[in-house]
């Protein structure tokens, strides 16, 4: 089982980077070819950058259009980030100090994460305001809920040997494979993470740039037809 998981982990890792490079290539091709038509680009400014940082960090645009969903999404993303940061201790052989800073917040976020996902699922499925549910997004939500719930179980009710987890992860990273931790919950948790990675939406990388463009466009709009 451990060998299958290790091979799958390398496969998923490779697939992640192939996917990333294919996206980058697509974008690079668009940059390199002479544009068939490109309208005028709105100018950059410090204000646009500052506003886009607000948009990215606070999900401001979502707050403006759907405060109920915004609450769940923002809490989910922050807690997900904290949980990921907490997990970094498994990936460093010598854990940097800054990773330790995130251990307690990450632990608390581990409780919040599944709750926020349940909240989002309820809003998405049962609110009459919601007219559209992307099947992929629903799969992601359910998958994340399963992963986070399993993680929570392993840190509360069914404690796992974290040393074995670290050795297992370090083994994959250093190509000197260690035995997989003897826990069904961990096997499920890790397997589901391997399923999640190829499904991770690439908007995590591109949305901030699009938000910056949107702010630039918004600031430039009054100048289109008015005196500069």
């Amino acid at each position: 089982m451990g060998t299958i998981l290790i091979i799958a982990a390398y496969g998923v890792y490779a697939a992640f980077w192939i996917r990333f490079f294919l996206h980058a290539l697509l974008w690079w091709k668009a940059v390199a070819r002479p544009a068939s038509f490109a309208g005028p680009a709105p100018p950059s400014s410090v204000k646009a950058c500052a506003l886009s940082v607000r948009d990215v960090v606070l999900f401001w645009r979502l707050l403006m259009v759907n405060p109920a969903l915004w609450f769940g999404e923002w809490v989910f993303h922050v807690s997900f980030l904290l949980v990921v940061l907490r997990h970094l201790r498994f990936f460093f052989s010598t854990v940097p100090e800054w990773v330790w800073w995130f251990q307690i917040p990450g632990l608390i976020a581990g409780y919040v994460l599944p709750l926020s996902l349940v909240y989002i699922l309820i809003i998405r499925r049962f609110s009459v305001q919601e007219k559209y549910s992307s099947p992929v997004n629903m799969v992601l939500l359910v998958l994340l809920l399963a992963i986070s719930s399993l993680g929570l179980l392993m840190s509360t009710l069914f404690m796992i040997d974290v040393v074995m987890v670290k050795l297992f992860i370090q083994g994959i990273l250093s190509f000197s494979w260690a035995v997989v931790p003897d826990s069904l919950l961990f096997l499920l948790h890790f397997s589901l993470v391997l399923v999640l990675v190829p499904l991770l939406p690439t908007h995590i990388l591109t949305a901030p740039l699009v938000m910056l463009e949107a702010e630039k466009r918004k600031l430039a709009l009054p100048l289109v037809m008015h005196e500069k």
Partner: protein
Amino acid sequence: MKNKRSFTEELSPKQVLELDACTQCGECLKHCPVQAVTGNAAVSPPEKIRMFREFIRSTDGLKARLFGTGKTDRKLLEDFAKAVYECTTCGACGQNCPVGIFTQRLWPMLRKEMVKRGLGPIGVQADMPQAIMNSGNPYDKPASERYKPWFPENVRVAERADIAYYAGCTGAYEAQPMVRGDVVVLNAIGAPFTMLPPEEEVCCGFPLFITGQHDLLEDLVKRLVAGYEARGVKTLVCSCPCCVNIMSRDWPAFYGRELPFTIRHITQFVAGAIKAGTLRITKELRETVIYHDPCYLSRGVGVIEEPRDVLRSIPGVNVIEFERHGLNSRCCGSGGAARKVYHENAIKMGRQTIDEAVAKKADRLILSCPACYAKVNEAMRGYEKQIRITDIMELVSGLITEQEKK
């Protein structure tokens, strides 16, 4: 259908990113006028983006790179083309997009890709290039009838002037009270203005741009710009939001450099004249009026306050607002050339505008777009709810004294 050409050929790098950045959250559906009248999520913005991502994968994905491009389901392509042409391109989806995708520009570019693949435009939209080549306008009406039926006898047009007026095809052929009002008000302001002869005032290119048929655009733009430049024009005034939009945003790109004149919407010009005291609205109007923001004027080029300034300058008038107004205005149904093909959708959207205006107890619905004017009037024919529909300059022209008109 076997693909060799990448589906991203017509897209800018930013648009490639935008397609990737869509989170499929579906917030846009709440603001989409097509959704409001069809309820068909298959033609919604996130579905269109999802489908287009599939198409891109078929030409640029890993499988396509390793084993060559495969076949794209013809039916899926046709469904996509219908969905992208059913859109009114009002841009409300982008305005409310949590990521900020510029959909008012993205959809026309996806339409252009469909045109290149022989899947677009749809229906009568395909006749427009030939009609414009024949007669200079997408309605294929004779140039001799462009000004004649509505142009007031007492209004004089200068041969050369700093100011020019562009009537536009929809105004000239389908919303004549509007363009008549424009020239009456311009005349009342007193500054000389010029116009191109009817055979030279050809289509601005917007209907071709918005349906993805770009071949004639450069020629049309260069002809128009040369015509105004030859008349010494410094400011080109127009009342059609679609014309104003393409003139200010895209004409420089098709012309190849900055335009030798500035573009102004008629309400900007008139609001400026009222402020400067060169136009006075003396007659009183004891009415409650509701102003509808045209999508390509508000979201498109940010002209929001000036129409309201003009209306508020009318003595006695009470200006009220739609629930969705300004940058968040709701499409009247006539945008994106969709009204020519998806007529029933457009009528239903027009009636939503009428419904709200009636519910708010407005005496008059004020418009400032010839396409809105033509379509909302059409939507009211045979409808149980009725309201007086007036173009903003049609209204102003009726409230200035005969002395000022001369």
